């Protein structure tokens, strides 16, 4: 036990020393600031920030690319709180819960304090999640090393099922439909076992399959451009930002909320595809029910801002746990990050702890440094941010399209990938208008090949029998979880359709 701890500590300090060099620090500082600015602009989500800026990482050394992407990720999630508080339009969906109290505080002239509390809460959330990342991941690695073909197949299936269940408020079937559409998308191209072309319709370009990054950029980038530009929503910035840093007494009073919301954020983050917005809402809801100040939530309460902001940032560390150990992203921005590091040749998963044992600690240290920069920049740019928020979205959003085009093209240098991006952008827009969530689609595309190959190989090994699965405790746990998720999801759908089957609903149609 002690030997293992010392070994982990040795790797931690080894990684710490490796990350402290000037270029890395400069890249991290710049990336975190960029993330904050992009995340703050309404309509530009954290996933979109990564989708837009991923192309800048292509030419970077691997270490710098990791710092760059994580800096953007950490900054963008926090950045969403500025517009949520100042204009009541969350910069990212993760900051939607922040707007409930933040905007009321801003109307009262306490917008600066709300931003300060949000930034400090995000800082706490990151610290909690980094602690969990460092201490929990080695244990998850040990479990992940026991995974066989059955477990990998069930894990992929479980990921899509739970993500579909959590990302749709009322009708989980929609989440599952897009999740399995993601699986189907991953089937396009040459089969991984026999190199047999599937669903290529004779098109040579489709034989290579649908590249992940162009599809992600389309789903999160282009569909967002269309959603934002489809109607004019003018917004006004409230008053001037005055005092930003809350008093020490206020900060101290927020610590219990930050710890509770941080733990919730990490837990939600570790669930495949669940994401920062769900983390923030759950933490806000729990805070409202559990806190002594619960009844003040929604009336302009700093604790409400802190609950949501701590949790959405804590999701980042949580999302890294399944990503590093099982190659299953815990949130949509984490999916972008996974796609980017695949491009740099790193394959997260159980073997990563053997192939690249310090990688976990490098990620943790980069996150820690990005967190420090996030705190500094977050408090410094609160006042100038009002200027950035004045940028017209009608100018900004069209400029994003050429950036998405470069992002889609630069990875594989194929014009076909740009067309794929546009296709997925329009598909994403239509699906979003019909209330389909995007996270399961992305998770399905990522996990599809794993599900396909593992399932076929598992069945081949057992000669088509499901009985060997009964001797695998991890497999049974995953299978039970899938059955329970399916049962609860179907029940929710039935309840939802019952609620809307009243004769009155027909009257209102007429």
């Amino acid at each position: 036990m002690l030997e293992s701890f010392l070994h982990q500590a040795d790797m931690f300090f080894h990684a710490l020393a490796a990350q402290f060099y000037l270029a890395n620090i400069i890249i991290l500082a710049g990336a975190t600031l960029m993330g904050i600015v992009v995340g703050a602009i309404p309509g530009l989500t954290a996933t979109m920030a990564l989708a837009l800026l991923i192309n800048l990482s292509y030419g970077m050394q691997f270490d710098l690319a990791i710092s760059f992407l994580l800096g953007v990720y950490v900054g963008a999630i926090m950045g969403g709180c500025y517009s949520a508080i100042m204009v009541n339009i969350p910069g990212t969906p993760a900051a939607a819960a922040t707007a409930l109290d933040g905007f009321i505080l801003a109307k009262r002239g306490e917008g600066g304090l709300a931003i300060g509390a949000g930034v400090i809460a995000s800082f706490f959330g990151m610290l909690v999640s980094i602690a969990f990342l460092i201490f929990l991941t080695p244990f998850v690695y040990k479990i992940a090393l026991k995974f066989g073909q059955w477990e990998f197949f069930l894990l992929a299936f479980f990921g899509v099922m739970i993500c579909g269940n959590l990302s749709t408020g009322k009708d989980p079937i929609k989440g599952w439909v897009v999740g399995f559409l993601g699986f189907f998308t991953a089937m396009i191209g040459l089969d991984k076992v026999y190199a047999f072309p599937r669903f290529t319709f004779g098109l040579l370009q489709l034989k290579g399959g649908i590249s992940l990054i162009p599809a992600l950029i389309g789903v999160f980038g282009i569909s967002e451009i269309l959603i934002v530009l489809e109607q004019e929503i003018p917004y006004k910035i409230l008053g001037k930002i005055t005092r930003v840093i809350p008093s020490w007494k206020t900060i101290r009073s927020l610590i219990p909320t930050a710890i509770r919301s941080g733990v919730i954020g990490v837990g939600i983050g570790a669930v495949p595809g669940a994401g920062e917005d769900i983390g923030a809402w759950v933490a806000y809801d729990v805070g409202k029910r559990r806190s002594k100040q619960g009844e003040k939530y929604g009336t302009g309460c700093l604790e409400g801002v802190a609950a949501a902001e701590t949790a959405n940032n804590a999701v980042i560390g949580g999302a890294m746990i399944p990503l590093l150990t099982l190659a299953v992203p815990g949130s949509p921005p984490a999916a972008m990050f996974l796609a980017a590091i695949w491009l740099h040749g790193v394959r997260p998963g159980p073997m990563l702890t053997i192939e690249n044992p310090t990688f976990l600690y490098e990620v943790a240290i980069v996150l820690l440094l990005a967190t420090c920069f996030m705190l500094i920049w977050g408090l410094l740019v609160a006042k100038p941010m009002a200027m950035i928020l004045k940028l017209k979205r009608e100018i900004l959003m069209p400029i994003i399209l050429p950036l998405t085009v470069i992002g889609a093209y630069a990875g594989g240098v194929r014009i076909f990938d740009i067309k794929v991006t546009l296709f997925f952008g329009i598909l994403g827009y239509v699906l979003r208008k019909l209330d389909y969530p995007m996270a399961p689609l992305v998770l399905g595309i990522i996990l599809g090949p794993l599900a396909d190959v593992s399932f076929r190989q598992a069945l081949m090994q057992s000669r088509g029998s499901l009985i060997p699965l009964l001797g695998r405790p991890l497999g049974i746990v995953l299978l039970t979880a899938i059955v329970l998720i399916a049962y609860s999801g179907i029940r929710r759908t039935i309840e939802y359709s019952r609620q809307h089957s009243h004769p009155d609903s027909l009257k209102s149609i007429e």
Partner: protein
Amino acid sequence: MIKTDKMAAADLVMGIFLIIFGGLVVLSSLNMKIYKTFLDAPGFFPFILGILFIGLGMMMISSSLRRKGYEQVKQGLKNFNPGYLFKSIQFQRVMILIILMVLYIFVLIDRVHFTLATTLYLFFTLYYLKSASLMKIIVISIATAFIISTFFTKFFQIPLP
């Protein structure tokens, strides 16, 4: 409180689409080559997916019918007026923006230089959105296209389409 579910009709259509799509996936997966057994054949997993799509489609149809989806579709078809749809500003905006994107990606890129293609795309999009005065739009379009091209090729050595 009982609310009207506007998505019931869309869900009914989607349910039907999923059953047809699932059926096609099943058929094409059954036509894929079998090397040893069907269990490890390239068509095996798509076959399972096809079945899942059919199952989910049936569940969507059933849920939609309970929510008066059929009545909504009937009502919608009775009152269907394509002219009304095209008069919707939101619909117009999205269609024109998509057309501009399609022209940029399918017609301009790979045929003309990236900087010129981007300038043209930005000019027409910003002009349509009435984002600024004509002079400003011209300046923004040219400057942005030039800055993006230079930034990516010179500073980051990233190839442009």
